[in-house]
């Protein structure tokens, strides 16, 4: 009985699929965006590859770009000031950075119980520039600046995408169809999925920040540095991971060779 029933069921499924297969398709809308969109981008960083390590000098420069440019709108709520020690800042430096941070940390007035703010300390997470989503949208033409902690892991293309996004703002090309022209308040950027992004160009001129280590702050350099910094915020344990991984792989290679030899030894007199 099983096979006749199976045959019948099989025929029904196949028939339903054949009908779906031959059904004429509606003509797909031509994808206008594709012609202008930049899909593949690259950015070699010191943290790439199995032996990759962070370039701490670069992370500090990237942090400076975040502090002086990005942090005006973007939060970094998974990173604490204390974490900055991992990219080479000393304890007193971290303390000073926290204390002088532009946004204060929400707190409660100990005398009245009223909401208040206070200066940040190293154990605080980076305070968000806006009190809440409504405030963020109100200040940004109804767009919400995303938190940047995980941005290089939360976007296809990762750090190279962030770098490309920051460096590809330009005037819309003359042949751009009217439907793709940036509406008021949006900005043309071919790296962004639909070509028009709410974020105004954040890095506009060389020398926008003044690097302490004397590196020339070109737009490309600032974008590279902040992308590298955001790789660190998304994956702070990357160096541990690479280091542990090398040791684990070496151990496993030796163990596997030993296991193979013991297998050959045990089976030596047994044809199989």
């Amino acid at each position, binding site marked *: 009985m*099983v*096979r006749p029933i*199976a*045959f019948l*069921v*099989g*025929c*029904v*499924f*196949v*028939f*339903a*699929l*054949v*009908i*779906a*297969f031959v*059904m004429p*398709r509606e003509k*797909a809308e031509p994808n206008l965006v594709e012609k202008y969109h930049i899909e593949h981008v690259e950015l070699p960083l010191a943290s790439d590859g*199995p032996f990759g390590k962070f370039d701490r000098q670069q992370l500090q420069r990237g942090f400076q770009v975040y502090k002086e440019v990005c942090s005006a709108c973007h939060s970094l709520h*998974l990173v604490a000031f204390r*974490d900055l020690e991992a990219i080479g800042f000393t304890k007193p430096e971290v303390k000073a950075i926290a204390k002088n941070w532009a946004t204060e940390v929400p707190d409660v007035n100990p005398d009245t119980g009223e909401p208040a703010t206070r200066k940040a300390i190293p154990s605080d997470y980076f305070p968000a520039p806006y009190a809440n989503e409504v405030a963020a949208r109100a200040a940004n033409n109804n767009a919400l600046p*995303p938190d940047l*902690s*995980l941005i290089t*892991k*939360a*976007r*296809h293309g*990762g750090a190279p995408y962030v770098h490309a996004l920051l460096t590809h703002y330009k005037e819309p090309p003359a042949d751009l169809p009217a439907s793709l022209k940036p509406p008021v308040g949006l900005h043309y950027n071919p790296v962004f*999925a639909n070509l028009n992004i709410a974020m105004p160009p954040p890095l506009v001129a060389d020398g926008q920040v003044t690097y302490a280590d004397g590196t020339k702050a070109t737009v490309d350099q600032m974008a590279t540095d902040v992308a590298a910094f955001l790789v660190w915020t*998304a994956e*702070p*344990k990357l160096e*541990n*991971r*690479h280091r*542990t*991984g*090398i040791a*684990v*792989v070496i151990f*496993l*290679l030796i*163990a*596997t060779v030993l*296991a*193979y030899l*013991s*297998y050959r030894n*045990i*089976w030596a*007199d*047994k*044809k*199989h």
Partner: protein
Amino acid sequence: MSFPWAEHYAPKHPLMRWVDEKLPLPRLVYNAVGAGYPVPRNLNYWWNFGVLAGLALVVQIVTGIILAMHYAANAGIAFVSVEQIMRDVNSGWMLRYAHSNGASMFLAVVYIHIFRGLYYGSYKAPREMVWLLGVVIFLLMMATAFMGYVLPWGQMSFWGAQVITGFFSAIPLVGEPIRELLLGGFAPDNAALNRFFSLHYLLPFVIAGVIILHIWALHIPGSNNPTGVDVKGPQDTVPFHPYYTSKDGMGAGVFFLIFALLVFFAPNLLGHPDNYIPANPLSTPAHIVPEWYFLPFYAILKAFTVNFLWIPAKLWGVMAMFGSILLLFFLPWLDKSPVRSSRYRPVYKWFFWALVADVVVLWYAGGSPAEEPYVRLGQFAAAYYFAHFLIILPIVSALEKPLPLPNSITEAVLGGEDEAAPIGLQQA
């Protein structure tokens, strides 16, 4: 169980004798995966994957229990609690990456294990029960993996839960109430997250229980082998330990090497970037795709695009998707060929490889956007999938003329050569 020439457990140490008298647990282990289990001598590397699947389950349970100590199953803080595991828990990043990639490794070795069973006819008499229990394990694994993917409460977690629980709403009349009952609400939220966490913690132990039944059922006829020929005598078998423990040890080494390369050097390769964005019920991702191991089934779901026989397309898709797995329960009775191994089935062998290619095509179509040519590709591959199991396989198995089988495993292995009798059997 198994063969009369199986070695008997004879504890030498008085302590083990004492334990064995009171509770013969060491004996059970000895007979299950020790020297007391005679196994065909000719198993190839494809037979490593059962043990590897068991290892993967152990890895998942160990890492999962520790992760559960740090994870908070609450829709408000689940996402951040996972990130705190990644950042603040000692070696938390390793545990979490091992667990998420461990799921991929588990499913990968189980898929190979299933295809090995298909190629060598391991589902056929007298091992039908082994196969049936295996399909149950596979279903439980899929449920567990799906609920685990919801726990980080990222965008793909949320929208995956939305899509998958949406299957139930395809059922006429009672569908929507069933979906609400499963979710504990109208959309995935805290109630759903909590019950998924509870079940995600429970099901692996159910899987472990069914694995015990799977192995128990296996030990009654004993393991199949690449020739598919029954074991005829002691010369055809070797004791599981040390012969296959050593071979599995090597297999485990390779398994952990690949696993380590993923965890330490490409931990997000198999994941989706959208799951690093916190769940947002108000923003639908551009492409909702499941994890790679569900893509062939997702392709079958998407392939049904027209209403047919008064049944809406969505219900067809859901029925076909569940049907594509449930039909495996009937496989032992769909394939009537008396020959197990495809080595001796000249026609079926080609259809087996066609099925492998078909599943790869389904996998590719499942991960592609819903536009041509991918939709038609998926429809063609889905039709072939059902045709393979429900139409081609029964017909081929009835008409095919198998090649002559070897008389015994030993004959197949030695190819007519003599073998010096093992020292223990040599006549004095």
